[in-house]
């Protein structure tokens, strides 16, 4: 399995029947495709849709039906469309059960940075800042280290924040961490990785919560 597969397969387990879920752009979108058939959830898109279905059959794409990643999608039976203010009423008001987002850096305090690299072109935060403060449960999925082998799981984020103390759970290709009152807690090792391995690749201080 690739690192991406490890992360996505683990993230899928976070999904429970009955949830209203927002999946971020990029790797989180892959979670939708990996959901087991028959799982009973509604996927929300922050541009203004609840009940995203699969991509359209070729030839049926509709410019008036896209997700937050601007991809053409379809709607499930029982879907609804609404304006973007109502969409963020759902998000900011705590009506979305789960948001899964990508990350550039995560701190041991549950801070997330995923929208801006100083010196590079600013693209904008889109709906990420609203999602991290609003969703009932925020899960970040990302590679544990960057392409230079440096830990993306930090004592403190070096990049500008998307949200402060907002993450409930972090899933990387190496491990799963929870953010608690006591601090950041390692709760699971993934894909055969060892505690030593994870410790070596993690700048953040964490509590070993493995049983």
């Amino acid at each position, binding site marked *: 399995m690739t690192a991406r597969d490890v992360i996505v397969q683990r993230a899928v387990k976070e999904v429970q029947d009955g949830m209203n879920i927002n999946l971020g752009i990029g790797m989180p979108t892959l979670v939708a495709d990996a959901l087991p058939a028959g799982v009973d959830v509604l996927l929300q898109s*922050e*541009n203004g849709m609840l009940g995203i279905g699969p991509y359209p059959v*070729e*030839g049926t*794409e509709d410019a008036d039906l*896209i997700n937050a990643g601007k991809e053409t999608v379809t709607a499930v039976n029982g879907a609804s469309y609404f304006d973007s*203010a109502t969409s963020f009423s759902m998000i900011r008001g705590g009506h979305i059960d789960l948001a899964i987002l990508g990350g550039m850096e995560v701190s041991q305090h549950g801070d997330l940075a995923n929208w801006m690299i100083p010196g590079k072109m600013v693209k904008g935060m*889109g709906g990420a800042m*609203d999602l991290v403060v609003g969703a009932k449960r925020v899960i970040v999925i990302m590679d544990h280290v960057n392409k230079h082998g440096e830990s993306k799981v930090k004592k403190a984020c070096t990049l500008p924040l998307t949200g402060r103390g907002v993450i409930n759970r972090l899933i990387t290709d190496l491990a799963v961490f929870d953010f608690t009152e006591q601090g950041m807690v390692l709760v699971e090792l993934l894909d055969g990785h060892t505690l030593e391995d994870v410790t070596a690749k993690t700048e953040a201080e964490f509590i070993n919560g493995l049983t």
Partner: protein
Amino acid sequence: MDKVTQSFEEIVKQIPDGASIAVGGFGLSGIPEKLILALVAQGTKDLTIYSNNCGVDDWGLGLLLKERQIKKMVASYVGENKTFEQQFLNGEIDVELTPQGTLAERLRAGGSGIPAFYTPTGVGTPIAEGKEVRQFDGEEYVLERGIVADFAFIKGWKADRYGNIVYRHTAQNFNPLCAMAGKVTIAEVEEIVELGALLPDEVHTPAVFVQHVLAGQQYEKRIEKRTVRSKGGEA
């Protein structure tokens, strides 16, 4: 109460240099493409634009950028546009990045007579810098201001001559909010229908928020990311 006019060229003549315009759409979906083209043709300068995105290099608000008609852009995401990047790096355009939910709420608030509201979005981030942060019930919130624009450009699916609008699918997005935020709201639609053809329970934007209605012809409705699955297969 007949708000229907015919000419896009004529209707944008009321928009002076330096005007602020709230523009509907998300990405290239549900954008008022004809009104933007008319404003490009008119060459109106020094615009302040409130819109979630800024189009792409050769379509939507990107066309106004290319002609250097935009002075200030208030948006949540401008990452699809190289012209924007260039002008930003050259200091030719002023940009105010606003989280998407905050932008949506600011437009609705301005259109609703609410001058300011508190939101949890952006606390502890660069977005909160220079803004009032205040506690309610032990949590911190940022004060954000409502937006009232001189004009709004919106794109609907159908309208009647009073200016009642229905949108189609996710092309709704920011359009109803821009309609509220504009002092003068101009709506372009794909079809103008008889009064009474829109059921009162289905109207998305009531007529009171709309001052002018125009029907556009041959909508291009570009797709930014065409994602499909093969027939009968998975994505």
